[in-house]
């Protein structure tokens, strides 16, 4: 019988790691998308501001200065001052870190729980799936802000409780996406192959399923940060989040509301800051989605 060997060219081809290649592709597509890049650059800028901003601004964001109350934008106070005479520019710079902190942390926590619930649900199916997903449906049935409002109302108003509330209302979104992706990946033949080798569920889930469903998770996380920022500001605006005198943008907006007609700059600048951050994350998130998975585009 003929020996079965395969002729192999001894010449080494260019080594290609599919993961690296994939990453490069995504990066290339992202770079071609100017709006997404603009969003991305803004996000980096915001993060730099959040980190070094408090050190380069001279004023104290909390110190009142009664002499300079309600002043309009000037060379001394770029964004003017509020009803306590505090520099709005300084307060917005200081608020950046709070906003990003809430945005990132709440989405991160929501993502972790959502991914775990989603994978467990999709992988095991059956009764566990039914229980988890029906719970998620209940959470999804509430309008986002209302759910967050309810949770904060129960826990009390503070930045940490806002993070908890937003995490909870982010969970079902992630859980659903992850469950769907898990269902499709679980049926792949190589998952069966690893199972036939005797791999534990833990190994299958983390080594073979999770890496394959990262794209939708990353996309959702990026887009979700915008929602989280908006919701956090909303809660603070309603007086349920960060408490005065914390320089939180939503709270500042709420304070500025009383002076809307005479001194619109007090509400205008925090509002603009919120818009910019949300816009940046949305643009970037859309770009990431298009680059990672064009099929998700709706």
């Amino acid at each position: 019988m003929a020996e079965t060997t395969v002729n192999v060219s001894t010449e080494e081809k260019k080594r290609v790691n599919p993961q690296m290649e994939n990453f490069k592709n995504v990066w290339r597509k992202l770079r071609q998308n100017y709006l997404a890049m603009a969003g991305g650059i803004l996000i980096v800028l915001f993060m730099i501001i959040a980190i070094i901003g408090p050190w380069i601004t001279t004023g104290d964001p909390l110190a009142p200065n009664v002499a300079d109350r309600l002043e309009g934008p000037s060379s001394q106070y770029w964004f003017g001052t509020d009803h306590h005479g505090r520099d709005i520019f300084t307060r917005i710079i200081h608020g950046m870190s709070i906003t990003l902190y809430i945005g990132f942390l709440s989405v991160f926590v929501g993502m972790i729980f959502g991914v775990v619930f989603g994978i467990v649900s999709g992988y095991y199916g059956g009764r566990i799936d039914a229980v988890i997903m029906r719970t998620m449906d209940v959470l999804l049935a509430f309008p986002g802000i209302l759910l967050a409002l309810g949770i904060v109302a129960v826990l009390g108003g503070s930045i940490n409780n806002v993070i908890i509330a937003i995490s909870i209302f982010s969970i079902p979104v992630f859980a659903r996406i992850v469950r769907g992706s898990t269902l499709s990946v679980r049926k792949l033949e190589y998952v069966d192959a690893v199972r036939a080798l005797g791999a534990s569920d833990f190994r299958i889930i983390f080594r073979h399923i999770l890496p394959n469903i990262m794209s939708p998770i990353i996309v959702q996380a990026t887009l979700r940060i915008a929602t989280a920022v908006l919701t956090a500001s909303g809660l603070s605006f309603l007086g349920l989040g960060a408490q005065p005198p914390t320089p939180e943008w939503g709270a500042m907006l709420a304070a500025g509301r009383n002076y809307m007609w005479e001194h619109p700059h007090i509400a205008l600048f925090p509002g603009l800051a919120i818009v910019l951050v949300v816009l940046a994350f949305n643009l970037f998130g859309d770009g990431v989605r298009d680059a990672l998975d064009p099929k998700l585009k709706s």
Partner: protein
Amino acid sequence: MTTDILKVRNLKQYFPIKGGILGRKVNDVKAVDDISFEVKEGETLSIVGESGCGKSTTGRAILRLDEPTEGEVDFQGQDLLALSKKDMRRKRKDLQIIFQDPYASINPRQTVRQILSEAMEIQDVLPKDKREARIKELMKTVGLGEHQIDRFPHEFSGGQRQRIGIARALSVDPKMIICDESVSALDVSIQAQVLNLLKKLQRDYNLTYLFISHDLGVVRHISDRVLVMYLGKIVEIADKKSLFDNPKHPYTKTLLSAIPVPDPTKKKEQIVLKGDVPSPIDPPTGCRFHTRCPFATDKCVEEDPELRNNDSLMQDGHRAACHYIEEIESGEMKPNY
């Protein structure tokens, strides 16, 4: 006398169909319905049948990739279906599978080294420092080059990928391998190579194969015994020679008549069945083949035939599930096409 390495008893695999608002079970797809057979150590038993007859499901059920509804799968004296999840994981070392689609059955993100070392890690074969040498040896065994160890699946052809799949199955030193349409997705020339490789490995490692295929040519090449399935039931089982030369079940005869004969001058009677395969959701009563069988009678509609042997007509171990083996053989019953 060789021993049976695998004994399947009354295996049933029903997939529930859920419906209605409450998602209650409405019916079952009876993919595999009460089959029993044995596989002898060191042999190749092929399961043939058309699409949807339950041959792949049987393989998956034996491996518990889908949990069977009922039955017993006795492997090396242990009922696999009674094992705990943990014990089953350990047992999988001895019972491996090679899949049909070499493009789907290996993780595109792993290199050959990662694929094979993960398999060894899972079953804890060999100490860590000896694994690399073993991987290279395995690659050589299946006809891959050592220098390809850090390559990703997309750098290989379909045939080479299937070799990776074979190496993965071999890496845990199994006793038995289920080949689920393992060569069907390959080009004919590659098919022959892979089949010969499988045969060689069988000799070298004393492997037992359960070879699932719809390709009778391939089955004829590799098997010792053949089992024919139709609609979730075994219709005939025999050693290769008896089955191909002396088929007793009308369905087997039909299947065999479909093999092309490479001789244009030879006139050949081809039996063409009427209708389609009935749905396994509501399979026909009695003999499942009666709706399409040219010999069917009222008895076939009512009574489910047992697998049986007739000493004077059939070799030892050759069994067919037909009420009228003798009558058809003697020409007493005429086909009603």
